[in-house]
């Protein structure tokens, strides 16, 4: 079920309004202005160091912008904190069983035991981890760990799910398995916002692309248009796998 409908009021859209981010006076992001709407899978694409992860952290509110602001515009904006989840590039799992990792996150949301059990079983099954539920999380393979991190986020039934280079450390097979799970989450109505530097993955996943280069939003376009006819020279060069200046 789409979480948006289930809850009645959406926290989306998410607006970046002239957002800049600087560390000790060095600007890393400048003048980011865009609005993310409910629905399409938004992929933030760009070379290493373009500011993709920073943008994602600003979107989630883990970082506060130096200039400008990040706002939830939807009627449910007030409950934004409980309606989003993040999966980081490297899975951060607790030293306990796979199931207990999911349960921990649900416990933080104050959900009753029965709901926690039901959801834990559901997401572990959906990510193919049910047989490993009792295994220590940190003994799982890299691909399984990342799927568990995704399952944990999924269990929160977020309206928006932020994914920071979720498959960057995975081999192609593990990467595909993860993408499959992400699609399943998306089918339930969760808005996906993910960063990647992997063109092929971006093509597989994206409905729309936000192309970042050197801390600026250079181009934003629906996926087919972006991949077939990029407008900006930076995006053209990136798609041709050229070294960008």
């Amino acid at each position: 079920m789409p979480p948006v409908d289930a809850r009645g009021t959406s926290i989306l859209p998410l607006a970046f309004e002239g957002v800049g981010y600087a560390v000790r006076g060095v600007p890393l992001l400048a003048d980011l202005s865009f609005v993310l709407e409910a629905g399409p899978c938004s992929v933030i694409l760009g070379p290493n160091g373009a500011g993709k992860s920073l943008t994602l952290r600003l979107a989630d509110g883990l970082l506060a912008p130096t200039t400008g602001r990040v706002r939830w515009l939807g009627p449910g904006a007030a409950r934004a904190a409980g309606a989003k989840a993040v999966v980081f590039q490297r899975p951060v799992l607790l030293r306990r069983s796979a199931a207990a990792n999911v349960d921990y996150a649900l416990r933080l949301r104050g959900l009753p035991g029965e709901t926690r059990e039901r959801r834990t079983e559901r997401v572990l099954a959906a990510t193919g981890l049910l047989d490993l539920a009792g295994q220590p999380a940190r003994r799982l393979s890299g691909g399984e760990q990342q799927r568990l991190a995704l399952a944990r986020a999924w269990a929160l039934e977020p309206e928006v799910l932020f994914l920071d280079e979720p498959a960057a450390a995975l081999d192609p097979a593990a990467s595909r398995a993860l993408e499959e799970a992400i699609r399943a989450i998306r089918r339930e109505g969760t808005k996906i916002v993910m960063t990647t530097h992997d063109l092929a993955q971006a093509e597989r996943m994206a409905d729309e692309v936000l192309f970042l280069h050197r801390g600026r939003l250079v181009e934003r376009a629906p996926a087919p248009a972006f991949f077939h006819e990029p407008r900006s020279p930076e995006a053209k060069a990136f798609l041709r796998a050229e070294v960008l200046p």
Partner: protein
Amino acid sequence: MPEIAEAFAAALRLIVGWEPELVEIAGLSLRVSLSAVALAAAVGLPFGAWLGVASFPGRHTLVVLLNALMGLPPVVVGLLVYLLLSRSGPLGALGLLFTPSAMIVAQTFLVTPIVAALTRQTVSDLHDEYGEQLRSLGAGPLRATATLLYEGRFALATALLAGFGRAIAEVGAVIIVGGNIAHATRTMTTAIALETSRGDLALALGLGILLIALSLAVNASAQLVSEAARRAAG
């Protein structure tokens, strides 16, 4: 070195003989040091964890200070606690001087900085790894700190053992505030100091061997428990 052979013989006699006086001394040593570690854990774990995740001006100075306190000289601590508890001292009315309680207080002062400093280090490292994820899951500072303590439980067990090692081995503080009174405040270390000054080196060394064995037993059992738990939790 005939003393060494004699010492081992003395140690063996002590253990085999299972003299009530020895059992009493060993028992008091364990009771005092384990109590001190428990109290130090109650203070040091939360304080160290807080210092590991907090950020405020002067934090770095406090960390340096805390690390330095790990090397507190036992005799100085003993002296300070003595002044605190002596009849004319601020806590003199409690009448704790020359009791096991006074020894526990003194050792708690010695152990707390060790537990707190090692906890600070452990939790700080874990915070670097987990902090952002816990925040994104919606864990408040208190909950996140409790989680980090739990995540660091194996390293923290080692911190407590380090504190226990410090307590069980020290003589300076307990001899000043306890007074090495037979059947009251005599511990393994104060008994060793006494027998050495009396010239009974074999007995002193025998007690020493026993003390090391005792310390080894506590460490080994803690290690076994910790290993088993670690295998279960990954």
